[in-house]
């Protein structure tokens, strides 16, 4: 498949002088930043152009009306992917046709809205933009419709022409407007557009409407009544293929030839020679090339010319014959005056049934991947694409879907649609999603949770961890320790959880109370994530027990925190100090054994403290010494009381 060498589009950046300076750049998520710079030398002492330009490609995703297009087509896309695999593609065809029609109706709805805005707005720039978007969508729908007829419905000869007629009629609806204008005038038969309307109807094969119009003229010219009657009868008798009928194509063809001959006879014997308009109509019925070409204004496009020509020369045209007629029609109509527009080339290539070329040409012609991505996906479902191996083993459908979805990802809300597209790209969807979802800005907790949910549903474990870590870090910076802790737990980040637990404990030492009690009380099994966290949880439990006056349990827990080495050594002094009120209670709470253990802990702590005392002030030293003395005294007293209590036999 030869690639057409398309010249790269040039975008001009104001203020930067490319002949004097270099241009620096940096990629963003949906844009590229450009600035003037100089890569040689160390700076010239003057700033040059002081601007940084934000350059973007797609305007489409920022248009509120087109957003509906993206949303609704997403819905259709997902529905299509989820339809079950069946054995025969024949049975699925009507379903695919219906999907295709859905897509087209979404395009049309969007066009209508854009048209309305274009007409009603006072903003000239907006109006112009809407108009250009409308014309692009018109072209898109035209192409899509043709692809639906030729590739998806893939009707055989006979029906083919009927479908092409429908296609042309749908896209040349202005004749109805004109007809209305004529009919509503005082004297329709004398209206200056009267004959235009009649001829348009004939060109579109709308015989009944043409005959009705002609009747108006006929009643005005009683003298020529027989002439009108002849023409009317010819038009009435024109054979039209009925796909549901019992007539075969050959039979139809035969009948049509008879009719054609009859028309020829009437032309030859001068039945219409006195009325040039009627004669023109007869010539059209006979498919005279020159006459048809003279109707360029009514036809307006070469493909209308093509269909009209086929209607009146070869209505039983086969799909395989189309391209020949298409090429010659285009050549005749365009007269080699100008190069064909991209749209013309695409339609021609469609008539040639070269699906890949259609997709390729559309990709080049359009700036947004929306159209080619969805159409190719649908065609792939119809099994119409040969598998084309890319350098990393993907196929055309996936390539286009990935491009489209990547474009959506930079939008602040449309990115969620993109996720579904990636889900249905089996080869690279996952990795594209991994790369792009971690860049979604986590502005609010709600948004972060949304992103997280998507990652968790797809087992993107690393992304989950990373997002939670980022949120935890943000929370710590803003001193929201509770939030930081829950994010660390979610990230399963033991190291960070330890860090935050330390902060909590420091806070407690400084202020005497815990913050975020709810969180700490309800840690549950998450407590086991890190030793420090476990300690935090248990320490809080100790405080609760104490508050509930469950002293014996509290005491036991407190001791175990030290003996089981759950508490960090640095915290032991605090714990021992916490033990003081328990030791000084009237009733004996710590048993003798427990008291021995406490003493042991104290001694361990004291002997371990070989820190240079110049770290502390003299005052702090004093406080420390006093504390230790108090502890020793309390412990000793408790020991004595405990021994006595345990030695005493309970008198019954």
């Amino acid at each position, binding site marked *: 498949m030869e690639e057409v060498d398309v010249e790269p589009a040039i975008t001009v950046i104001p203020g930067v002088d490319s002949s004097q300076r270099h241009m620096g750049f940096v*990629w963003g998520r949906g844009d590229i930043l450009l600035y003037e710079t100089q890569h040689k030398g160390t700076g010239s002492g*003057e700033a040059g152009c002081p601007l940084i330009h934000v350059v973007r490609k797609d305007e489409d995703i920022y248009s509120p009306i087109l957003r509906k297009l993206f949303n609704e087509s997403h819905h259709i896309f997902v529905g299509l992917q989820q339809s079950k695999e069946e054995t025969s593609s024949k049975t699925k065809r009507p379903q695919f046709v219906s999907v295709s029609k859905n897509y087209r109706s979404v395009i049309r709805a969007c066009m209508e809205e854009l048209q309305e805005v274009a007409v009603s707005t006072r903003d000239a720039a907006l109006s112009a933009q809407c108009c250009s978007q409308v014309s692009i969508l018109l072209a898109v729908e035209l192409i899509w419709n043709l692809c639906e007829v030729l590739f998806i419905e893939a009707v055989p000869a006979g029906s083919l022409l009927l479908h092409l007629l429908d296609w042309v009629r749908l896209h040349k609806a202005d004749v109805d407007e004109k007809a209305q204008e004529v009919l509503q005038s005082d004297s329709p038969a004398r209206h200056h557009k009267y004959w235009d309307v009649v001829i348009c109807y004939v060109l579109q094969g709308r015989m009944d409407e043409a005959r009705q119009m002609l009747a108006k003229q006929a009643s005005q010219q009683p003298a020529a009544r027989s002439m009108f009657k002849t023409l009317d009868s010819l038009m009435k008798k024109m054979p039209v293929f009925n796909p549901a009928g019992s007539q075969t194509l050959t039979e139809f063809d035969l009948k049509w030839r008879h009719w054609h001959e009859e028309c020829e006879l009437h032309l030859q014997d001068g039945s219409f020679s006195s009325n040039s308009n009627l004669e023109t109509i007869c010539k059209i019925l006979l498919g005279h090339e020159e006459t048809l070409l003279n109707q360029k204004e009514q036809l307006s496009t070469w493909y209308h010319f093509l269909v009209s020509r086929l209607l009146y020369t070869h209505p039983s045209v086969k799909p395989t014959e189309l391209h020949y007629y298409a090429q010659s029609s285009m050549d005749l109509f365009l007269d080699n005056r100008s190069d064909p527009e991209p749209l013309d080339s695409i339609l021609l290539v469609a008539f040639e049934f070269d699906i890949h070329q259609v997709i390729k040409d559309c990709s080049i012609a359009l700036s947004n991947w929306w159209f080619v991505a969805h159409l190719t996906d649908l065609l792939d479902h119809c099994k119409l694409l040969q598998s084309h191996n890319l350098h990393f083993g993907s196929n055309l459908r996936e390539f286009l879907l990935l491009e489209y979805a990547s474009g959506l990802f930079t939008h602040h809300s449309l990115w969620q649609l993109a996720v579904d597209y990636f889900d249905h790209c089996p080869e690279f969807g996952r990795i594209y999603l991994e790369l792009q979802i971690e860049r979604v800005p986590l502005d609010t907790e709600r948004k972060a949770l949304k992103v997280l949910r998507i990652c968790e549903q797809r087992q993107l474990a690393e992304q989950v961890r990373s997002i939670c870590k980022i949120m935890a870090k943000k929370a710590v910076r803003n001193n929201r320790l509770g939030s930081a802790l829950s994010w660390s737990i979610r990230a399963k980040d033991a190291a960070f959880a330890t860090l935050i637990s330390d902060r909590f404990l420091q806070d407690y030492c400084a202020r005497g109370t815990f913050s975020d009690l709810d969180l700490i009380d309800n840690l549950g099994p998450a407590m086991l994530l890190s030793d420090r966290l476990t300690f935090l949880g248990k320490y809080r439990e100790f405080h609760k027990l104490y508050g509930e006056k469950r002293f014996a349990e509290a005491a036991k827990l407190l001791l175990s925190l030290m003996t089981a080495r759950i508490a960090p050594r640095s915290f032991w002094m605090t714990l021992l100090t916490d033990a003081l009120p328990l030791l000084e209670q009237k009733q004996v709470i710590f048993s003798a054994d427990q008291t021995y253990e406490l003493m042991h802990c104290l001694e361990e702590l004291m002997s371990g403290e070989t820190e240079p005392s110049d770290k502390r002030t003299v005052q702090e030293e004093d406080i420390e010494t006093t504390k230790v003395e108090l502890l020793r005294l309390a412990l000793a007293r408790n020991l004595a009381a405990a021994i006595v209590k345990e030695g005493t036999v309970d008198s019954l």
Partner: protein
Amino acid sequence: MFVARSIAADHKDLIHDVSYDFHGRRMATCSSDQSVKVWDKSENGEWHCTASWKTHSGSVWRVTWAHPEFGQVLASCSFDRTAAVWEEIVGESNDKQRGQSHWIKRTTLVDSRTSVTDVKFAPKHMGLMLTTCSADGVVRIYEAPDVMNLSQWSLQHEISCKLSCSCISWNPSSSRTHSPMIAVGSDDNLNVGGKVQIYEYNENTRKYGKAETFASVTDPVHDIAFAPNLGRSFHVLAVATKDVRIFKLLPLRKEMSSSSGPTKFEVQTVAQFENHNSQVWRVSWNITSTLLASSGDDGCVRLWKANYMDNWKCTGILKGDGSPVNGTS
């Protein structure tokens, strides 16, 4: 493409680097005026300068953001032979209201004897590691072992490249598939020999060993960039030299016996473009590695894309015509 908006950067001298943060919400600019500015994007898309401060005593060549997992951290490098690490401090609520934030210096890295030409953070799975390269031909890799204390950095590796270095790029692919790999470009124009070197970390020796020198790149190299890995078995590297080059590095299967040496690669030139006329100064991949941008002596930025048949083509040119700007937004 079109210019969506223009920001008045307000530097008093040439801007040498602009860097987006990971989420595209913040940006840092650095200049020959020796300062760095940090900009924040508001909800309506406008950029506001939230910090501006003097960072070095010479032109600041590059500025780069650490991954947000490590907080709000920047690194800068300069002609003054140093690189520095900066951290944002959450300020008073008054500051927040006025839209200002403070950045403080966490460390200065003074090991280089010459201008420090590039500074990059290593991929986040390696921890918080900073890499610099200098005109003295040495690539230095530093690590902050305690991510909560960014004033402690230790020099972990010094890679002597023997040629004056201008740029470095880490292979962004994650740890499980291969060892850390870094590409170094040299702008030396006195010596012959390949100007792109690939170093790979060796688990056994715990050192970086040279895996490859690109003999086909003999002209000075100004920029180098690994493409984000899309689950491919090979690596893609873009090089800015007298032309734009795109290379594919295919790891050759290691012999069982030589598993201790660096991976051997087959180096293929995938594309070569001379459109920039003389020197190409910068190359950079977009996030999905579907587009490569380059800038060169012709003062233009060009965009390169591979189609679905893997043929590379220029798909866009951004050019300044020196016309005056209508107005900034």
